[in-house]
C-alpha cells in the first residue's frame, strides 16, 4: 500500500498510547501466543502505523503483566537458532481482556453518541 502522503499521519498521543498498551497486548495474545518483536509489528500493521511504541518500552509492560499473572512466558529456540521468549495469555488475562473491552467500548460508544457519528463496522 504505497502512501503518497508527505504530511505526518496523526499519531496517538503519548498518554493514549500508554493507556492502550495493556488491552492491545492482551488482544493480540488472545489470537495466539507471540513474541515481542512480532507483537509490535502486528499492532503497527493493524493501526496503519498510527500507534507507534518506543519498542523497548513494551518489554517492561510485558514483564509486569507476567508478574501480575495475566500472561505467561516461555523461552524457546526460534528458527534463527537464537532463544526467543514467547508470551501466552492466561485465564486471568482473558478475564482482564473482557473488562478492558467493556470499558473501551463504553468510552467509544459515549464519544460516538456525543459526536453523532454513524458507527461504521470494520
Amino acid at each position, binding site marked *: 500500500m504505497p502512501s503518497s502522503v508527505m504530511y505526518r499521519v496523526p499519531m496517538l498521543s503519548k498518554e493514549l498510547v500508554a493507556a492502550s498498551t495493556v488491552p492491545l497486548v492482551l488482544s493480540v495474545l488472545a489470537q495466539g501466543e507471540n513474541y515481542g518483536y512480532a507483537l509490535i509489528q502486528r499492532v503497527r500493521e493493524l493501526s496503519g502505523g498510527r500507534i507507534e511504541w518506543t*519498542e523497548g518500552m513494551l*518489554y517492561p509492560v510485558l514483564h509486569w503483566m507476567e508478574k501480575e499473572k495475566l500472561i505467561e512466558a516461555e523461552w524457546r529456540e526460534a528458527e534463527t537458532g537464537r532463544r526467543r521468549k514467547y508470551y501466552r495469555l492466561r485465564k486471568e488475562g482473558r478475564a482482564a481482556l473482557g473488562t478492558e473491552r467493556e470499558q473501551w467500548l463504553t468510552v467509544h460508544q459515549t464519544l460516538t453518541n456525543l459526536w453523532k457519528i454513524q458507527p461504521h463496522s470494520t
Partner: protein
Amino acid sequence: MENPAPFDLNHALQQWRASLQNLGGFSADELEELEGHLRESISVLHARGLSAQEAFTIATRRLGSERQLSDEFAKANPQRIWTERAMWMVVGVLVAYMVRVVFAPFPNTITMSALQLGLNGHLVGASVFLDGWFLWPVAAAISYWIFGRHSSWRDRVVEAAIRSPVLIGVGLFLGLVYLQHLMPDVDRLVSQKLHVVGGLTVAPNPKTLAILNSWCFWKNFLAPLFWIAAGPLLAGYAWRNRQKPVSGSPISYDMQPGEQEAARVFESQGLSLEEAGLVLKWRRGPQELVAPSLGLATNRSIWLERAVWMVTGVAFSDCLARLVLEPASLVAAATRATAPLLQHLGGLVSVCLGPALAGAVIAALWSWITRHPRQSASFGRVCRLRPILAAIALGVVFAGIECGQYAFFRYVVAPSNRGFGDIGYQWLVYGAELTQLIIPIALLLWLARRWRGMQTNPAPCR
C-alpha cells in the same frame, strides 16, 4: 550488501549491550530478549535495502535510547536498581569514613600553624571551618581518577568481593582500623616537627578559644548540611550532563528535490517519514548522524550518578546517626551512676538499640521505595530538575532535625544524665566501630553479592 562500509554489526551490538549493562537495571535474560528484538528488527530493515549500519541506527532508534530503556526497566523492577543504589550509598559511607580518618591530622596541624602565626581568632576559626571542605574535592578527584579511569581495577575489586566476601570484609576492616590507629601517630609526628620549628605548641587564650569553639559548632552543624545539599545539586548537574536521548527527539528532514521519490519508497516499506529523512540525509553527507546512538551513556555520566548515590549515602547516614544512634546512647548515659553490672548492661543495650532502630528505619524506607517506585521516582525528578529547591528543602528538614535534637538534649534530658561513665564510654567506642565499620562492610558485601546475583552471569553476546 550494497554498502561496503566497514561496519561490524556484531561489534556494534556488543557495544550497545555493554552500554546497557553499565547503566544497570537489566537482567541477563532481559538483555537477551532486547538483543533478539534488535537483531530481528535489523534483519527486516536490511532485507528492505538498508545497509547494516543504517538498519542498526534505525532499529536502535525504534527501540529507545539506552537511558530511556534503563529508566523504564528500573521502574518495572525497583528492587534491582535500588540494590545497586544502596550499594553505592554504602560505598560512599565507607569512603567518607576513610577520608575522615586519613585527613584527621590536617585540621589540627592547620589550626596549630595558624595559632603560631599569631593570626586573629576568627581567621584561625575560618581555617578550621574550611579545612574540612577543601579536602573533599581532593578526595573526590583521587577516587574518580582511580575508579573512573581504571575500570579494570574496579571490576577486579568487585569480583574479588563477591568471590571471597569474608576475606575481603576482614581485610577491609583491619585496613581501616589500622588506618585509624596510624593517623594519631602521624598527627603526633607532625606536631613534634612543628614543635621543633615553631617552639611550643600554642595554647590559645580563653577569648580565642571561645571564638574557635563557636566556629567549630557551626562547622559541625553545617558539614552535614553540605552533604545533604550536595546530593540534589550533584543530581541536577548529572542530569544536565546527560546527553539528550536520540530516540523520540524530532529531527529535521528537509528533503532535497530528487529525494521525494526515494522517501516515498522508504515509507511504503514501513519506515516513518522521519526515519526515511534520516537515512537520506545520511546517504547524502558525512556520517555524523550515526554516532549519537552508540555509547550514549558515557562512563563519565554513569560515574557522576554513582557519585550522587555515594553523597546521598553519606547524608543519609549522618541523619540516621542524629535521629537514632545518638538518642540510643542515652541509655548508657542514664546508667552511668549505677553498679558496674548495670552500666555494662546499659552500654550493651545502647550499642544494640541504635543499629536495631536504624535497621528498622532502613527496612521501612526500603519497602516503601520498592513498593511505590513512582512516588520515589517523582522525588528524584524534583532533585534533578529543581536541584536548588530540593537542596533547600532537604536542608530545612535537616536543620529541623538538628534543632529538635539540640532542644531535646538541652531541655528534656536532665544535665545529670549527660556524659558517660568509663564503662559506658567503652561500650560506645565499640558501638561506633560496629556502626561505622562492621555493619557497613558487611552490608556492602551482601549487597554486592545480591546485585551480581540479580544480573546473573552476563553472557558474552555472539
